[in-house]
């Protein structure tokens, strides 16, 4: 059971990474990108392709996967700008529809079968604190955590991060301070896409990808974002670890069905508890 728990924690770090792009875009651009999961899947397919044809490790494939996803996200900007009030709901409907297109495109481009990046070296066991873990999980967790740390540093220490935070907290005030919210929106969207794409190969290494597989990561992203609170990037990792652990335990004690139902049940519960956060962007009902 300890193995399962440790495995869950490892996966949790990846979950936080999966959620990071989504949380960023929601906090800054107030855009609920329901197509985020499909971007992750696209990144996964790119990673799988590179692995299959060039033997490129998922970790090394990350930048290559990040590019098209970032570009796609940025391409959605002109459309999003034309969305009127109520923005949140309309953007939600729009990205819901777009996720369908992306799914279809993935199906046409890559066919509907399930794919997995199975790196043989990653199967090797590593003993850590008396628990045997697949090396791959450790690598994924380490890379995820590293990337999250980098994101956190950017968010808190750089000027870019400050601009992002400013727009996230108060668009008008940011405007008065000389920051262009529209430009920052674009940066956030692109960054969100890049994060989604980059996490794709890692995701494809631990979970099979198929055109319809986007909903899973999307659910996790939404759950963690609501859990962490809008604009609170730091809490994503903690939330991710908790979720990963809870999922592993649910799977260990209840089986695959309960493991898959957990994030969905959590989402409904969180929506009931803190659902207003989506509309107001703050913790006010």
């Amino acid at each position, binding site marked *: 059971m300890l193995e399962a728990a440790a495995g869950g924690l490892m996966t949790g770090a990846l979950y936080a990474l999966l959620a990071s792009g989504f949380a960023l875009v929601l906090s800054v651009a107030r855009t*609920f990108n329901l197509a985020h999961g499909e971007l992750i899947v696209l990144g996964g397919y790119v990673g799988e392709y590179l692995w299959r044809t060039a033997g490129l490790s998922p970790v090394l494939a990350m930048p290559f996967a990040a590019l098209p996803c970032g570009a796609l996200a940025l391409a959605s900007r002109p*459309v999003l700008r*034309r*969305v*009127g009030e*109520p923005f*949140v*709901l*309309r953007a*939600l*409907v*729009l990205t*819901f*529809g*777009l*996720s*369908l*297109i992306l*799914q*279809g*495109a993935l*199906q*046409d481009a890559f066919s509907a079968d399930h794919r997995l990046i199975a790196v043989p070296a990653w199967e090797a066991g590593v003993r850590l604190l008396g628990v045997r873990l697949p090396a791959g999980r450790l690598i994924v967790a380490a890379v995820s955590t590293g990337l999250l740390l980098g994101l956190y540093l950017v968010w808190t220490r750089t000027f870019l991060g400050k601009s992002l935070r400013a727009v996230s907290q108060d668009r008008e005030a940011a405007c008065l301070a000389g920051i262009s919210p529209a430009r920052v929106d674009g940066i956030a969207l692109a960054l969100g896409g890049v994060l989604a794409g980059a996490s794709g190969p890692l995701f494809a290494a631990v979970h099979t990808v198929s055109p*319809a597989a986007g*909903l899973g990561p999307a*659910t996790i992203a*939404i759950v963690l974002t609501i859990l962490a609170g809008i604009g609170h990037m730091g809490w994503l990792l903690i939330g991710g670890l908790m979720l990963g652990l809870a999922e592993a335990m649910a799977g260990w004690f209840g*089986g*695959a*069905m309960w493991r*898959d*139902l957990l994030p*969905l*049940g959590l*989402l*409904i519960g969180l*929506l*009931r508890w803190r*659902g*207003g956060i*989506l*509309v107001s962007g703050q913790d006010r009902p």
Partner: protein
Amino acid sequence: MNTPHPPRPLDAGMRLVGPGAGGLALVAILPLALGLQDHLVYLATMAALLALLAQSWNLPAQAGLISFGHAAFFGVGAYASALLSLRAHASPWLGLLVAAGAAALVGWLAARIAGDLPGPAFSLATLALAEGLRVIALHWTGLTEGAWGLVGIPGLPWPALTGAWSPRGARILDYYAAAASVWVLCLILAWIRRRPFGLALEAIRQAEGRAEALGVNTRQVKRAALILSAAFAGVAGGLHAHLFRWVDPASVFGVHHSVVPLIMAMFGGTGTLLGPVAGAAALYLANELVFHRLAPGAHLWLYGAAIVVVVVALPRGIFGYLQARLERRHEPV
């Protein structure tokens, strides 16, 4: 002194009997108009099925409840009817009835867990509900055969038709079953629009708190809308099961059957009576006749373009836009 309210064009200001009979006549003649050609009747049947689903989606949408999870009701209906005919050897007609009931139950559940949530939260909760049911259907193999799905579901039992007409006759009658369901739902929706219930739905959509302060039991109204909507979506699911003869979690509980009615209804016009039907027919036929020839997945570009157009330019859909323009001309100064 009291001037009568001017009749609103394109709306149910007219008496129901006339248009109702007219609609029924249209439904009845269509196969003949299509020359009874197999392929065309098939298209009409599928269009009717999608129209039924889209129209059912429309009802809660009129109260501002934008469901992202109608596949939940559709799938429950499909599985309920399929299981009843396969395991209990019951008539598919009974299956359809049970499908409506089972789906209505899930509709009640959706109202219970998500009915009080604000707009976007409600949408996401319904998405989670549909996905949850898919996961359950996938893993509860004892009941549903899991990913393999249920096969060999009997078709709708029509009285034995003799001669060479038999299979074709059955397909024509299948069309009538689907089209008649759409017609019934449209009648019900037209009737609702003229009742206080319809006014309440619209009021809730525009300003829920205000409606409640005027005495509307908003929780009850929303719940009723969801239950009725779910029941008809369930019928659509049951029909799907008996027309396609197989169901599996990915197809009936998949996001596809949640997104598509949304797009079709919004494209046609959620605030209008026949908008969803027209939207469904238009998009489906555009796909089958044009886009599908280009590439198997091309329909998604069509649907995607439709949703972008609706959200960005035509929030009220095509019919809604037309209706608004006609109303502006008639508006008293």
